[in-house]
């Protein structure tokens, strides 16, 4: 109510001073990872390595953002659980859908002469 009441922040976790630097470091890290990803795709490694690498790097970025920027690390674990329910179900559904469409029996008919698939789901 009053703009002067600055004491007793409800979010006093003892990280206040360091948070600024944590955030900056993470932002830098994210930028670096993105750079690595961009360069990575042009390296002539076997496809599966690059795909795995990209997925891994994206997951790392993802986790950094949700756990630091989005505070999950400092929040009650319930928030993490709540979000991961959605995340895991969404991931599982994506995985299943890509497989269902990848199965031999499910190829569209016009596809018989199509170029090689872009990514093999696992």
């Amino acid at each position, binding site marked *: 109510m009053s703009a002067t009441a600055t004491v007793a922040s409800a979010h006093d976790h003892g990280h206040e001073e360091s948070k600024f630097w944590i955030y900056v470091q993470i932002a830098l890290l994210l930028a670096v990872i993105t750079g690595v990803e961009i360069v990575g795709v042009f390296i002539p490694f076997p496809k599966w390595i690059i795909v795995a690498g990209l997925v891994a790097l994206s997951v790392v970025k993802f986790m950094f953002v949700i756990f630091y920027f989005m505070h999950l690390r400092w929040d009650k674990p*319930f928030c993490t659980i709540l979000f991961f329910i959605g995340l895991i*179900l969404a991931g599982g*559904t994506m995985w299943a859908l890509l*497989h*269902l*469409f990848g199965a031999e029996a499910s190829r569209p008919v016009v596809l018989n002469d199509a170029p090689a698939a872009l990514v093999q789901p696992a």
Partner: protein
Amino acid sequence: MDATVKSSFTEHGAAAPSKSFVLWTPTAKTGLMSWLTTVDHKKIGFLYGVFALFFFLVGGVEALLIRLQLMVPNNTVLTAQQYNTMFTMHATTMIFLAVMPMGAAFFNFIMPLQIGARDVAFPRLNAFSLWTFVAGAIILNIGWFSPEGAPNGGWFGYAPLTSKEFIPLHSIDFWVLGLQLLGVASIAAALNFIVTIINLRAPGMTMMRLPVFTWMTLITSFLIVLSFPAITIALVELMMDRTFDTNFFEVSNGGMPILWQHLFWVFGHPEVYILILPAMGIVSEILPTFSRKPLFGYPIVVFSGASIGFLGFGVWSHHMFTTGMGTVATAAFAMATMAIAVPTGVKIFNWIGTLWGGHLKMRTPMMFALGFIWMFMIGGFSGVMHSAAPADAQQQDSYFVVAHFHYVLIGGSIFALLGGIHYWFPLMFGRQVSDFWGKLSFWVIFAGFNITFFPMHFLGLNGMPRRTFTYDTNMGWNTANFISTIGALILGVGIAVYFAVMVYTYFKGKKVGRDPWDARTLEWSLPNPPPEYNYAVIPTVHARDAFWYEKHHQEEIAKEKAEHAKAEDAHGGLHMPHQSIMPFIASVGVLIGAIGASYHHLIPALIGGVIMFIGIYLWSLEGADGYHLHLDADGKPVDDGHGKH
């Protein structure tokens, strides 16, 4: 036992535009505005219930027309187009406008009471959900009054039949936009319930003390929140195809219509559990009350509810066994589907365990609950028959499926919901339905239901396809269809009796006091009808069947309450949220926008969007304001200061 608070002082001296809480008596007409602006979860729940029952009757009339057409072979009551419209609208209405909102009505009305809360976490969001639901219902049905016609693509609207090429009329757009709005409304409501249950529990109400109905509300809300996005995307894609000529399901540019089926059923199967879990929750309240025993195996019932919900996301393709998914996928989905029988069975066993050794009071709600167990079991078994994919190749899209899902939907959901209305009627309105008439309607409904739908198993096995407006006399389907139609008429009479009795009781029924069933959960500790603020004092919960515990530890509880009351009053009294018209305005904007969009007109769509934005903007400016209420010794509000902060 009435724990009330003495009004000692108020630091906000503002005069009170005091309005008493008059929802429940026929004089309750404090004007239309009081309904449009309400943020009270009980009023909102009541409105959900009224709309749901209305649409249940509409859907029922559509069903009767279907049955009349099928009464005899080569019949001409309806034309093909009318018939197709009829089953599309019958299913859409029943599922989205009757059973789901009926669930929402109970969630709204009962759940906050069960956890000892004064309202849901976001009362205005709750109002927005309600009015957006109404907007969706209007758009779905608008086609009846337009030359475009009502939707006729089947309730799962398979592409590419629903594309512009095959159904150029806007009837499908009404369906798309209508469902879209219902999705928004459902998700908003479900988010609200999740936060409410997690965060607004009274002290001592741990998760493992939640009444099972509240647990099922929570799980259902999760299912809604996690499954509706899939249909939202599917509908967006269809809408884009129809409005902007995109290619999601356009074969000539490489679209794959099978994608629609996957996206729909990713939503669709969790949806059927959205329809049944609240019912299971209701039954899990009724059975212990009327057996005078706690629920048998509470943790396992809760856990199996959760696993049904979770497994429900991994079985969607059992609706697609005939789409040629290949052996491995078919086998995987068949096995996963069968697995669901286990947690469901656990529930059945625990309900029987609850009855075992009890003192069963055979009142009307109990009849419906027992009827539920019987009928749902039969429906579940035909579900398991479907899950055996090779057998399903013969059953899919035959009347066997129609039999299956009406057994789970009517014998399951509807029975439980009708029982729930009986059960909570005294709490909601302070009157009790006559047991004689209640049971009479139950038996007529029970008989009519079985006469209608049991023969459909035979019809299906005898090769009668569903969604057929006519059939030939030489197919061996005449007798069963005739019986089925007679059954539907009996069922109709039963439902009519049921509602007649309800309406009568609402006005003239026997008045009853608090807790007429000797129930077990917290909501029964309230006077009926419950006051606007629910709990004069937020209760402290000491055991799973909280009210049962209270009744058996009266002195201790009374002392505790008095203390809490004092503390609460010291904080300025009961805080109540202000009413607000903004959610309603936002929903009106949504309605206008969606009508514009369904006619593919940009300008009205934008205007609607702007109105919605203004509504939400003003709503956000209102802030989470409220006022304070102080109660006298009878629990009547004496003075509500306008406590703005």
